[in-house]
């Protein structure tokens, strides 16, 4: 057998979780290498350039934002564990966001990074639900997401406390859209984690978007002595007697490792190892996720505020009686979605993004997009771009402004097909498999998962996932 390099730890995928794990391991002297199939880091949270413009993929906002001095939250834990200074992230807070329901968003709950705003909005619109909502809030504050938590339906728990089904949907909406691989419901522990991340903590963004965070992590990793191989996909995992012995790269090169951390997804990792042995050993056969999205970006030569968007940072909208967070029959479901306006973070008095951006994300059907021939793919993208943006523009806070998305100076859109191509996630499933592996263990004794399919969600969640998996499965085993 031709053997190449050997590492203490090999990490598959240079996304946020892989980079965070790599920083920890390299910092503590492990010989570690990250293998990434693409030329750019970031995985599900990356960026690309078209026509001189840089677009973010994935990142709407960084959740878990707390102000300096607030301790015991994920942000502080990440900064400590990765030895980052909070100024290095350059996080700027959101202005205000909304959950807007009804054909034109008549029923609108504002929220900011001050939870009191959301509480008073709930009290104003749902006076009969205040006590139940407060009980739910107490329960959410006490919930610690852990692998030992029993599986509970978030919808059932929220429904126990809150009688009004519309309020239930409005409370479910943000955590579902920001992290559920499951249709219309999610695990209560994950729901609590995301609710805390968005509502108790808050939303923020670096002026430079995801690029700033990725550059920071890549630099830290390199300074710590970590190696990184880009354009170097893994073709297969070679295992014997329940242990991974080596990875075979697309180039045919073989790389040995004592431990492997895979951030590419559970099903995707099993496929590399031939599926058979891993499948037989797994307690539950994992399923690829089906929840996926299309995202549209409209670029303007003006601030979105002058187009009727006010100071809204994100808007979670739904025009129907009930929220339907499921894979649509058609290519896209424009009835609900998420609008993000990167201009409306508080970058400081003098600092503005060079152009206006209105991003809209809607649920999509992978199969419908995957099987389109090339000509109809392009035409359908164009058609849906208009439908999606038109649907979202109904939810402007100042609907009287006579402007539309048609004044955009540039547009772009990506579909589940794009997501699959660039992230390798089956079905373009942004939030991965609905079956999470919270301990990160697999059928192989030295192969662990990190990232989306380990179960921690969002930008901060993925970093925390890399950190905790590196700690649990590598560092704490060699610490003593």
């Amino acid at each position, binding site marked *: 057998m031709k053997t190449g390099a050997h590492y203490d730890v090999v990490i598959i995928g240079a996304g946020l979780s892989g980079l965070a794990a790599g920083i920890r391991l390299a910092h503590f002297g492990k010989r570690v290498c990250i293998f990434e199939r693409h030329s750019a880091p970031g995985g599900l949270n990356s960026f690309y350039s078209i026509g001189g413009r840089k677009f973010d993929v994935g990142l709407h906002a960084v959740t878990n934002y707390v102000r300096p001095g607030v301790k*015991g939250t994920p942000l502080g834990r990440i900064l*400590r564990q990765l030895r980052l200074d909070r100024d290095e992230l350059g996080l700027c807070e959101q202005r205000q966001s909304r959950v807007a329901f009804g054909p034109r968003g008549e029923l609108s709950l504002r929220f900011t990074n001050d939870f009191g705003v959301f509480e008073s909005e709930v009290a104003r619109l749902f006076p009969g639900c205040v006590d139940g909502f407060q009980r739910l809030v107490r329960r959410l504050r006490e919930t610690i997401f852990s692998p030992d938590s029993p599986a509970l339906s978030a919808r059932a728990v929220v429904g126990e406390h809150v009688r009004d089904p519309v309020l239930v949907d409005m409370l479910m909406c943000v955590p579902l859209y920001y992290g559920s691989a499951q249709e219309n419901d999610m695990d209560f522990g994950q729901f609590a984690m995301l609710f805390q991340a968005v509502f108790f903590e808050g939303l923020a963004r670096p002026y430079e978007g995801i690029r700033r965070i990725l550059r920071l992590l890549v630099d830290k990793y390199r300074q710590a002595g970590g190696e990184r191989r880009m354009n170097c996909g893994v073709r297969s995992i070679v295992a014997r007697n329940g242990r991974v012995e080596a990875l075979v790269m697309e180039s045919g090169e073989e790389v040995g490792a004592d431990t492997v951390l895979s951030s590419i997804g559970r099903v995707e990792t099993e496929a590399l190892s031939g599926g058979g042995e891993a499948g037989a050993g797994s307690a539950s056969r994992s399923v690829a996720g089906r929840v996926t999205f299309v995202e549209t970006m409209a670029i303007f030569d003006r601030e979105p505020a002058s187009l009727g968007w006010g100071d809204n940072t994100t808007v979670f909208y739904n025009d129907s009686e009930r929220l339907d967070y499921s894979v649509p029959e058609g290519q896209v479901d424009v009835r609900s979605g998420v609008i993000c306006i990167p201009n409306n973070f508080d970058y400081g008095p003098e600092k503005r993004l060079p152009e206006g951006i209105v991003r809209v994300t809607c649920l999509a059907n992978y199969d419908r997009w995957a099987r389109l021939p090339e000509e109809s793919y392009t035409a359908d993208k164009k058609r849906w771009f208009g439908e999606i943006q038109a649907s979202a523009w109904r939810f402007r806070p100042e609907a009287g402004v006579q402007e539309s998305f048609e004044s955009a100076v540039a547009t772009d859109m990506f579909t589940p097909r794009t997501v699959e191509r660039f992230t390798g996630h089956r079905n373009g499933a942004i939030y991965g498999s609905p079956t999470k592996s919270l301990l990160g263990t697999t059928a192989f004794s030295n192969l662990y998962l990190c990232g989306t399919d380990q179960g921690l969600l969002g930008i901060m969640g993925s970093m925390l996932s890399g950190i905790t998996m590196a700690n649990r499965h590598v560092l704490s085993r060699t610490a*003593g």
Partner: protein
Amino acid sequence: MTKDECKKAVIAIISDIAPDEDLSNLKPDVRLRDQLQLDSMDFLDIVMELRKRHGIEVPEADYPKLASLDSCADYLTPKFNALAAKS
């Protein structure tokens, strides 16, 4: 190495791990956990940094000996001195 120097070495590690904590008024006889917001991840890092910077190994069974600055000094100072004697 004296016990005071040992405490300084431990404080230097904590200040790098948790730069947001105020370490100026640490009471040596009170558990670090009761004065600072340190979780188990942070304690793992103290152990890892001791090894990385000073070559000192702390087996898991001995983690409770790192509870306060005083107990750290009692436990670690002989280890520091044994290493110094060897080199």
